[in-house]
């Protein structure tokens, strides 16, 4: 009995520690964004006594309108609303494109199994080995040749490659595990391949699709480099690229507010699907056998 109580105590202590470790940085950044300039300098680091949303409001001051001075330095405003729009366009476009392409490839590899399908899958996955370091130099040639310089479409084109290999891997493993009879029953009934796919396989693979979507969102939301290399003019930038151009010394609080404004929606979306994400990962690797 005492051993059990001790175990329970340790479990609780470690769980508490894990929660603090995971949430502290997020909490810290959130608290800073709620501070006034005065409290930012003279207040306590870890708590906010007079929370305010003025930093968030200031983000939406229209571009071109000066926001006052610090000493003799003019504080310029940023087209944050445009960045927000750009980010939504790029992220939703990328997720949809990635899922569509990954589904097609995964169906081919997991169900139709062309000769050497195992190697196709391995080669697609192995593209993760290619060092991203200076890849953007030659990538610029491709982008210029396509006439996409400083265009949001670049990201919709480049981002999928960072998530696609894992999504193909996961979805094709899931499709491969599903017994053949599932589709064959429908095919014998006279339904076409497409019908069988959309009516039977797609609904079945919903948890795995959710997992793939969340993985894609998490992966592309972590990129700062590609966005800031390819999007030059400020009306074409996404939030990460735009925040990177801010004058930190003048606009620290504004930038911190921007960080939260980008992070909160993504965190909420991910949190809503968190359970499905785990279920999908499990299903992809094991289930359906």
């Amino acid at each position: 009995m005492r051993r059990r109580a001790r175990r329970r105590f340790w479990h609780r202590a470690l769980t508490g520690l894990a929660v603090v470790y995971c949430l502290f940085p997020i909490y810290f950044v959130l608290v800073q964004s709620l501070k006034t300039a005065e409290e930012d300098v003279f207040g306590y680091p870890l708590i906010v006594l007079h929370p305010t949303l003025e930093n968030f409001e200031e983000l939406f001051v229209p571009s071109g309108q000066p926001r006052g001075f610090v000493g003799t330095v003019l504080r310029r405003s940023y087209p944050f609303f445009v960045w927000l729009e750009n980010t939504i366009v790029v992220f939703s476009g990328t997720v949809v494109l990635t899922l569509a392409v990954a589904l097609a490839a995964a169906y081919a590899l997991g169900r139709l199994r062309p000769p050497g399908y195992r190697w196709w899958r391995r080669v697609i996955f192995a593209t993760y080995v290619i060092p991203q370091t200076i890849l953007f130099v030659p990538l610029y040639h491709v982008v210029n040749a396509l006439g996409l310089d400083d265009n949001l479409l670049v990201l919709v084109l480049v981002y999928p490659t960072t998530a696609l290999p894992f999504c193909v891997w996961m979805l094709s493993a899931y499709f491969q595990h599903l017994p053949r009879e599932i589709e064959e029953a429908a095919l014998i009934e006279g339904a076409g391949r497409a019908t069988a796919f959309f009516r039977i396989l797609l609904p079945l693979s919903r948890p795995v699709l959710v997992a793939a979507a969340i993985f894609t969102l998490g992966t592309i939301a972590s990129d700062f480099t590609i966005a800031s290399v390819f999007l030059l003019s400020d009306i074409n930038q996404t939030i990460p690229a735009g925040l990177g151009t801010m004058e930190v010394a003048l606009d620290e609080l504004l930038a911190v507010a921007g960080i939260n404004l980008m992070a909160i929606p993504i965190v909420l979306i991910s949190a809503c699907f968190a359970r499905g994400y785990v279920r999908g990962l499990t299903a992809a690797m094991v289930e359906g056998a």
Partner: protein
Amino acid sequence: MRSRAGARRRREVGLAYLLLAPAVVLLGAVLAYPLAWEVWASFTGLSPLQESGPAFVGFENYRLQLASPQFWLAAAITVAHAVVTTAAKLAIGTGFALLLARPFRGRAVVFLAVFLPWAYPASVSVIGWYWTLSPPITTSYSVFMGNLKNAVDGALGSGAWAFLSVTLFNIWRGSSFIGVLLLAGINAIPPELFEYATLECGSARQRFWSVTVPLLRPFLALSVFLSLTTGFADLANVWMLTAGRIVFPVIGTQAYWLAIGAGQFGPASALSLLLVPLLLAALLLLFRLFDAPEREPA
């Protein structure tokens, strides 16, 4: 009868290639040309600073890199960085997964907390993280952080704090991803197996090594590979964020610096390609562990 089955199979294969095409075209357009360019550049003295066309230099770029002690130092630090962060992520991630393995009150909340560091977009959290640890102006915490930075830099050399802080950030985020991935793996293990193991194995440690780890093998291998290939991304982000002011002593940012800062595309390409064989070897090894098991077509 046989030829009809053959025709059907041929149609299937044709359809398969058609469906694979978008993925192959996308990966090819974005990765194949740049990769080929990089390989080609690594054999030349390509530089935007030169007026004349690039001269073919053979393996000279590679030879020079391999001969310089600087390269070996950077390679050692890169490998050590990858090994340390991966080991830390695996350890913490496994801890998370084990804590969450069995039901308890508030498990859903703890799970969400563990999930958040990865879900929190790293593109912006790296900005916040970096400015928190090296505050640009006077804030209420900048004295504390400044002292910390000076202490670490004083003990380990300048730039150590920046490197260490990004590494910690990478571990913070990666351990969350691996924890969730391993939890997915544990969920797949039938509970009866655990019950059986409790009866058979003496200690909890024995149970962990002889039951949990082997069953989680594919998930562990996948975690290791993804950690190895993405470990560098955060350093790259900070390099971009500081406009290249901070050159970390790892191969990736040194290649950046050579290419963008010094305009030496040839050596930079060679430098960044030198790690590929190592990664490829790791991948081939790991494929054996996480590839979907062979199943006879029914």
